């Protein structure tokens, strides 16, 4: 009998759409050889601070090549517990309320698999990180998108949550500051959102991976609000703040029962995060604060530069309070997201990501990552200006 490999792919996987970013990646890859300035990345341009790399090399030399405890090295969990307490004001016991994962990516997957029954409803705000919707789908959950709007600087509002809520909703997925919009919430809005989750008895998954990259005011975690720690899984990692994307290391903190459920999935699926990455993470927590502050300062100046330039060019752009993404409106110059991104790439060799890759809420926008040198940002903005002027005439 002739093999038909298609029929072996599980139904819910074959119907899973490919990431819009992936399409665009292929397009950029075809431009090889040309001088493309990329604002399309989702990671720092800084290499991991040397002291972290050096510590990991030392760990390798010392023969740290074994599996660690499923939850992660106790030293690292202690470090995470004090870091989260000092920076977010939430206290977690290192021995049963912290789990070290292979990036926030794995932590998200564990959470969805551990908490979602088939058909359970998961609310998430949108435009959002590309993985949320498919991850919910992979866990056989039903995703409910809650829109955020440019007029609110893409801050999530309790009103929008109320409006989108459906009976049976179980989980609220939050990402503040948000990829791709840089949106954050005021303390007042966050209080209202917290109240909403209590009223509706929701479990909150809070992805705070960009929290160190908050430029104005202080970042408040929803888990630090009264009564919220017991209904929140706090997800965080080292990728963005410490410039450690390739290490693949993150963590989740929360009520012991929930961490234990995530741990069950983790121990069978992953066993543990790489010991070398765990060593690097430990050094990052111990001695990385200065490097984080320095990088944040640079992102801050770069943000001010691109936001000002985008607005000058005629692409309406709010100033993102956190993250390293600007999310300007390309519809202001009469183009849709795809046409703008493709045209800009082909005519001026600047790569940005069409807003639609982050859900229908990103229509008419593009995401530009400003984790790139001043020179390149200036050049990219000049090219963009030329492109916009040409397309207008």
């Amino acid at each position: 009998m002739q093999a038909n490999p298609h029929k072996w792919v599980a139904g819910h996987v074959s119907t899973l759409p490919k990431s819009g970013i992936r399409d665009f990646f292929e397009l950029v890859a075809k431009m090889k050889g040309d001088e493309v300035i990329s604002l399309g990345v989702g990671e720092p341009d800084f290499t991991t601070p040397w002291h972290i790399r050096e510590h990991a090399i030392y760990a390798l030399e010392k023969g740290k090549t074994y599996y660690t405890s499923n939850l992660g090295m106790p030293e690292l969990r202690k470090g995470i517990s004090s870091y989260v307490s000092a920076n977010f004001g939430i206290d977690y016991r290192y021995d049963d309320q912290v789990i070290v994962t292979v990036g926030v990516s794995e932590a998200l997957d564990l959470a969805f698999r551990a908490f979602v029954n088939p058909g359970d409803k998961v609310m998430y705000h949108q435009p959002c990180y590309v993985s949320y919707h498919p991850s919910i789908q992979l866990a056989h959950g039903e995703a409910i998108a809650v829109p955020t709007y440019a007029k609110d600087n893409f801050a999530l509002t309790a009103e929008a949550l109320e409006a989108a809520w459906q009976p049976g909703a179980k989980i609220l997925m939050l990402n503040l500051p948000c990829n791709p919009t840089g949106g954050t919430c005021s303390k007042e809005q966050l209080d209202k959102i917290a109240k909403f989750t209590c009223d509706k008895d929701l479990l909150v998954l809070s992805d705070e991976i960009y929290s160190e990259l908050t430029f104005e005011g202080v970042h408040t975690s929803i888990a630090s609000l009264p009564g919220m720690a017991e209904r929140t899984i706090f997800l965080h990692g080292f990728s963005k703040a410490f410039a450690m994307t390739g290490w693949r290391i993150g963590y989740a903190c929360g009520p012991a029962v929930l961490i234990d459920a995530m741990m069950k999935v983790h121990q069978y699926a992953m066993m543990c995060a790489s010991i070398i990455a765990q060593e690097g993470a430990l050094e990052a927590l111990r001695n990385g604060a200065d490097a984080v502050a320095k990088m944040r300062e640079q992102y801050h100046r770069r943000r001010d530069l691109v936001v000002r330039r985008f607005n000058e060019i005629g692409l309406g752009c709010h100033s993102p309070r956190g993250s390293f993404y600007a999310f300007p409106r390309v519809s202001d110059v009469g183009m849709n997201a795809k046409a703008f991104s493709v045209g800009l790439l082909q005519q001026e060799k600047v790569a940005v990501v069409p807003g639609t890759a982050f859900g229908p809420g990103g229509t008419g926008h593009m995401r530009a990552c400003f984790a790139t040198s001043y020179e390149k940002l200036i050049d990219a903005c000049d090219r963009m200006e030329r492109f916009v002027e040409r397309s207008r005439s």
Partner: protein
Amino acid sequence: MLKLLLEGGRLTTAQMAQVAGIAEAEVVQYLEQLKKDKIFLGWRPVLDLSREAAAEAAVEAIIEVRVTPEREGGFNRLAERISRFDEVHTCMLVSGGYDLLVIVRGKSLQKVAAFVSEKLSTFEGILSTATHFLLRCYKDQGFMLESEESTSSRLNVAP
């Protein structure tokens, strides 16, 4: 603006103006003020001359100098006299086993050696010198020389 200067980038005044969000004239004016206040003393390129075959041969020596401080003025008078020589690139007072750390540059080993033996060590008040010729420089003023590191492995588009 000071921070931008200290970040050691290669920004032109026009680019600095862009980053700071002010007019280029303002940047120039600010730099002028820094010069007036003797904070900003000048531009100097950081060159990796090992890469430039045509570059003039240059020899650099790091010299530890022990001196007798003077009754009035301590180390200053002597340090300033030494500093005035064109051959002297850097001169600083340090704590530890010697007093002045002097960096001397010359076209050849002989020239530098001659400067040390005929000029420097003959000064009244100088007790001894120890000369270390520089063999290879790995990091200069914050710049790694001949470092392979790059971010070129970063993908062009990522979530």
